[in-house]
């Protein structure tokens, strides 16, 4: 039993889930759900569809180069079962997961670093422009937006006052 990766979105495909398509050149495509299968049938390129792992990797949104990523691999070399090795591996897996999570958070922080100044400027602008909106009570805003529209007479009056 194995967890396979979805061909389209690269998520896990658990046994008994999703579907498998075997093309007539015997290449196997697995899909985690009908959404991915449908997108595949539409001949979409997973690298260009924003919600896939493939897109995130190519667009530099995910960590792709790191020593923690070197541990998980299909090695295709049969290794005889060894209880000690298995124990070491399980422990290592937990530790690797931890380190990887930390590095990913750093990666995200670095990716978002240039946002701080931008955010600051946006906040300042909003506060400068609409400082009074903050003071209008919420109920009043809601009421005003739900009011029926002004009549034609009022409209005329408004035009004249303007």
């Amino acid at each position, binding site marked *: 039993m194995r967890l396979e990766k979805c061909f389209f979105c690269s998520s896990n495909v658990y046994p008994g889930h999703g579907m498998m398509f075997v093309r007539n050149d015997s290449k196997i495509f697995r899909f985690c759900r009908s959404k991915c299968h449908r997108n595949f049938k539409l001949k979409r390129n997973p690298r260009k569809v924003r919600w896939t792992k493939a897109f995130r990797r190519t667009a530099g949104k995910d960590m792709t180069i790191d020593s923690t990523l070197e541990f998980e691999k299909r*090695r295709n070399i049969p290794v005889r079962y060894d209880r000690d090795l298995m124990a070491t591996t399980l422990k290592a*897996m937990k530790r690797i997961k931890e380190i990887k999570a930390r590095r990913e958070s750093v990666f995200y922080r670095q990716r978002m670093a240039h946002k701080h100044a931008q955010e600051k400027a946006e906040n300042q602008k909003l506060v400068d422009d609409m400082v009074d909106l903050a003071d209008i009570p919420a109920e009043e805003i809601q009421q005003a937006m739900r*009011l029926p529209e002004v009549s034609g007479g009022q409209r005329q009056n408004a035009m004249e006052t303007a």
Partner: protein
Amino acid sequence: MSSYYNFKKIQVIPGSEDLLNIILSKIQRKTPTVIHPGYKISRIREFYMRKIKFAQDCFDEKLDHITGEFPKLDEIHPFYADLMNVLYDRDHYKLALGQISKAKHLIDSVAKDYTRLVKFGDSLYRCKQLKVAALGRMATIIKRQKDSLTYLEQVRQHLARLPSIDPNTRTLLVCGYPNVGKSSFMNKLTRADVDVQPYAFTTKSLFVGHMDYKYLRWQLIDTPGILDHPLEDRNTIEMQSVTALAHLRACVLFFIDLSEECGFSIDAQLNLYNTIKPLFAGKPTVMVVNKIDKKRMEDLDAPTRERIEAMLARDGVTLAQQSCYTDEGVIAVRDTACDLLIAARADMKLRSHRVQDVLNKLHVAQPQARDDVARPAFVPEAALERQRAAKEMVRDPDTGELVPLKRSMTLARDVEAEHGGAGVYNVNLKDRYLLANDDWKQDIIPELMDGKNIADFIDPDIAERLAALEEEEERLIAEGFYDDNTPDLTPAELETRARAKIIRDKKALARAAHSSLATMPRMELHGRLDPRPERITRRLNTLPILARRLAAKGKDLPATAQLMRSVSQGGWRAAAEDPAYARKPSEVMKMRRLEGDQKNRQLMGLAPGKAQYNQAIKEVRFTQRGPNLMAKRGESDRHIMTKMPKHLFSGKRTIGKTDRR
């Protein structure tokens, strides 16, 4: 090979009358039949020439077939050629075939002459007469071949019934005086079922039977009896025997009857042997003494016996004795004859030049002994012990059968029987695992953990690699890789952020409240409060709407102006004060009239100005909204009405009320 000389496939030869009928009806069927005097003469000539030529072709085909199908005496095996000579007379046979072939040529020349004549025919009548004459002459030629055709048909029937003798295979040939028991011998060895009667010349032609010996097919030929007189005096029946003796490379079994029951004396039989001896030359020959139930070789008087033995010794002929009545020695005769023939054939093959070709290709490799050391097979002591134990048998107290004292080893089926038998016991394959430690064999091997395949992480040197990773981690920590370098916000910035959040929430609130209203035409919804040009009012954001409404309610908050300003740079007041937009009403009307293109059909029939036009457009859109949402057909869609509605045209009668449905 045997089917090569099978004359059963020759087709029936029709008599001359039949042949004519066949061909004339074929001409009638396969050529055009309609012709009129009014046709062009070239067409008429063509019509009759075609008939003549077709007749010629048909005759040619038939006659060719006949001459082609009969075996040519020069081409077939001499045995058959001679046999046919004996049976049908070579000259007669050749003459008949020759005449057929000559008839063919005659017909060809007739056809040639008459087609030439038809070319000059000047009327339908004359052409027709020429055709009739041509066919008539052809018919005459064929009728003259009546006797040849009849003869050939008889030959065909007889040929088809000839035994299919293969002249090249292993053959035993039985010959001798009439009534000496040749056919009885044949019946003993094969299933040919030849007629056996107690009078001379029961067998009047050659008979073939087949038998097996040493996994080979053998052909046994029974011949009619031969009398002792010169070759010229022999009749057809005897000549068949002679032909077979002369041409077949076979083992000859010469039968003699010492009891003289056949009606011929021993001397007569021996004389016959001497007469036909030249025919046996070069062939293995066996002298078979038949009817030994009556008289054996040993029972003969000494002088006769010695004479026979001397003869046999002189010619190198084997003697065999048998009795078809008691079956004594029949098989021995067969074996003797067959072995002799096999030896003779092998000898002949060895003497032929072809044997060298085969021998050159044959090579039997013999391995060379390396040294004299004996290298017997090694059988472990345990295995020998097991074999010994298996040989010791004891009687099973329950069944009384002999069973081994102890099983040589425990078999998987014994284990199965011990654990509940088939269907209950499950073979534990884990027992056969080859692992470093046998305790691990029954471990349940985990496959998945935390959404990962454990197999993907299994790596013999994972410990070292993990240590390297930990080292790298320490280094990174030391380098400050994990430190958060984001600059802290000042209190003022924090305040701004908090306030911005409040404003964002309020905006979201306004948007939510607005979007929760029932959908109505937007123009209708918010109307127009100001004389701002379309350009500005089109930017329908939530905030300006909010600002307007608050202003309309008299809430002249300072925020309103700011909100407005935030919408359009410079604010709407500035826009209103812009002289570019401040035009006199009359001027505006004039402009609009000028703008209104009289040829624009959308504006036709509408009051000048945009008001009525806009109203119209708005109403159209409103009515279309529903159907458009449902993607239904609208008024303006191109549509071709049904040109012939089915309900108005089906099921109509000539009278009655069925004219309308």
